[in-house]
């Protein structure tokens, strides 16, 4: 399928569904059913089995026609993590049931992976899922869960076998966030707001039909989620000066009185790095127009985190006296992280999380060194021990 072909399909769709007169949700559902949600997905699941690269064309055509979008920032975990995992590992029933309302935004998703005792070493997680009839009963605690308070569903990994080494006793589930055994508590961050939550699971029941992948193979399934997360975090197409660098460059242009040679050199260096990262991402996307994301996604996330931190730190210094101020310490529960909607101090603090969430920069460097460069792993004592015997 070519760009020309896809444009024809979009126009035909628009001829039948006038964005100006169609209800938003109806429009989104129809778009999904027409295979224009994610064109590289299979027919019947919101796609056309077309090359991934054509999606940009579809989005642009629809936006030009004034079509509503599915507010992707609000449902980023569903789109970026749950969907590719369900597509790859889900049963036909699971795919039919979950993908459509996920994409239209009718059902928000969240991710129940990290635990207080299992951060970088995610595979050490201790949340237990115990078989009970045709289902499972889950008990444990998860943390760093964004959207938990608005989510209808969660992707969840839990330990189903404590007697085997940690990577082998994990199973991957779809968890109903309306289950009475789920308690969501806001987790306040250094920015003052509570973007994330702690989630306590007590006797939560999950039908076996909501298991994703085989019992004990949850770690492999989770790799798909995590690789896609890193691509989602670090791999968006961005225009030149997109993101944090644009904010700082804008201040620089508007405020000549703040400039010094020292800051100028740092700004030029950061601008250069941002442009190189942009070109790197672009080249990666050209390579990956088809296929699953590999460890290179980790590299983009690493670069993105470093840049966001460098630039936001620079911005506070550039502002001088104004950098001493903060906009608001009130505890709020935002649905969307918007770096640009707040002031410099917020960006500075929030960017600190970029090198922690979704895999710390340290873990990403390990991944690059071992999976890309092929350097030998460190001596490990924890890989072959049964989980229950691990040092904690």
């Amino acid at each position, binding site marked *: 399928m070519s760009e020309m072909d896809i444009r024809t399909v979009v126009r035909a769709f628009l001829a039948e569904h006038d964005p100006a007169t169609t209800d938003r949700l109806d429009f989104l559902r129809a778009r999904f059913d027409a295979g224009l949600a994610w064109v590289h997905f299979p027919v019947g699941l919101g796609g056309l089995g077309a090359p991934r690269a054509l999606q940009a064309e579809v989005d642009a055509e629809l936006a030009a026609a004034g079509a509503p979008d599915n507010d992707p920032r609000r449902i980023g975990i569903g789109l970026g993590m749950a969907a590719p995992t369900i597509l790859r590992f889900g049963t036909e029933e699971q795919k039919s049931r979950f993908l459509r309302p996920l994409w239209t935004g009718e059902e928000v998703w969240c991710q129940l992976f990290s635990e207080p005792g299992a951060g*970088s*070493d995610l595979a050490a997680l201790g949340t237990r899922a115990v078989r009970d009839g045709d289902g499972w009963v889950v008990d444990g605690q998860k943390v760093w869960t964004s959207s938990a308070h608005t989510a209808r569903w969660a992707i969840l990994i839990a330990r189903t076998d404590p007697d085997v080494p940690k990577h082998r006793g994990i199973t991957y589930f779809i968890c109903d966030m309306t289950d009475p055994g789920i308690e969501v508590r806001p987790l306040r*961050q250094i920015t003052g707001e509570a973007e994330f939550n702690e989630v306590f699971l007590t006797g939560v029941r999950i039908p076996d039909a909501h298991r994703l992948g085989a019992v004990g193979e949850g770690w492999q399934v989770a790799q798909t989620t995590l690789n896609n997360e890193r691509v989602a975090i670090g791999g968006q197409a961005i225009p030149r000066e997109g993101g944090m660098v644009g904010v700082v460059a804008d201040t620089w242009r508007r405020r000549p009185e703040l400039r010094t040679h020292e800051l100028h050199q740092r700004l030029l260096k950061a601008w250069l790095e941002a442009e190189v990262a942009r070109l790197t991402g672009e080249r990666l996307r050209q390579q990956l127009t088809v296929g699953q994301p590999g460890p290179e996604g980790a590299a983009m996330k690493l670069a993105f985190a470093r840049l966001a931190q460098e630039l936001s730190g620079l911005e*506070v210094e550039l502002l001088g*006296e104004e950098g001493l101020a903060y906009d608001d310490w009130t505890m709020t529960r935002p649905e969307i992280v918007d770096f640009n909607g707040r002031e410099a*101090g917020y960006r500075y603090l929030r960017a600190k*999380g970029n090198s*922690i*969430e979704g895999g710390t*920069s340290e873990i990403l460097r390990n991944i690059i060194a071992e999976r890309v460069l092929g350097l030998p792993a460190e001596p490990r004592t924890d890989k072959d021990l049964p989980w229950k015997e691990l040092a904690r």
Partner: protein
Amino acid sequence: MSDLLYSEIEEELRSSVRDLLTDHCPPSAVLAGCESREPYDLALWRSLAAELGAAGLQVPEEYGGAGASLRETAVVMEELGRSVAPVPFLGSAVLATTALLACPASDLLPALAEGARTAVLAVPLSTAPGAAFPSGVRADGNGALTGRLTSVADALTADVLLVPAVDADGPGLYAVEASATGLGVVRRTSLDLTRPLADVTLEGVPARKLAGADTAPAALERALLTGAGLLASEQLGIAEWCLGTTVAYLKERKQFGRALGSFQAIKHRLADLWLETVGARAAARYAADALAGESPDAALAVAVAQAHCGALAVRAAEECVQLHGGIGMTWEHPAHLYLKRAKADQIALGTPGHHRNALAGLVDLPGPVD
């Protein structure tokens, strides 16, 4: 060469201050204080000032001080940095007291020295040594002040404000009582939760002139230079807390079946950070010693100490957050108090870039002729 070590007396002072702060100013109390309406722990201030005499260390005995020096004052700054203690020490005991010591009028000193009252030098916290004399406040023929000063640290609880103002004779330094009519002190929301800022507005406020055109600019400059030099000790204290807390955490926290602190990449980063911290100690000590002795090298010593320590404290706090992982991003862990203080301190009294640039003039390394 200067004495870069700590004397026995200085170590005793450190130990008293640290004991006091450990008892009365644990991180949980600091955090709780930030969320209260009281920006400062004034009970702690009284203990520090009255019991330990910390507020008057650099004040001669004839004015009710301890007759010690800025070296000892720097030790207190170090410990206050280590606890991000919410007390107006920088504003009152360092900036205002130094300015007053350089003024002809000295009657305010005894109350400041014993901590009975606090004062503040009313300039934006971001003012660097070498800045032009502020022109935002004017004094009329009766000495009444009108104008505005923004981002003044420690002003919220100050009893007296030392206001640089311009009158018919030129620059002058005026004392304004906090209770004076026409004075407005409004709290700002500040990045640093433990050192609140305020904007000060003056509308015909009655004031007393402390110094005129012959001494006011020098008094202000001496205060700013001293403040910048001693802030390096505070930044050293911040960095040491961050390094020590991180090391302790990484010895305990296990991932992959072993302590995180046993991973070599982490070790090497902490070794580098330690090396910079050792450097900060030497630089901060040298600055304090040079200021105490009014050495001709003082301006250089301050520039070196601020440029190095200002950057280090931020780096140490950033590493502390990063190496604590998720827990370091939470409001309930104290790391953010240090990050916010360190970042604000980086701007306070001149950024590292500003001070590094000052070296160009001080050591004859001029920039290109454009």
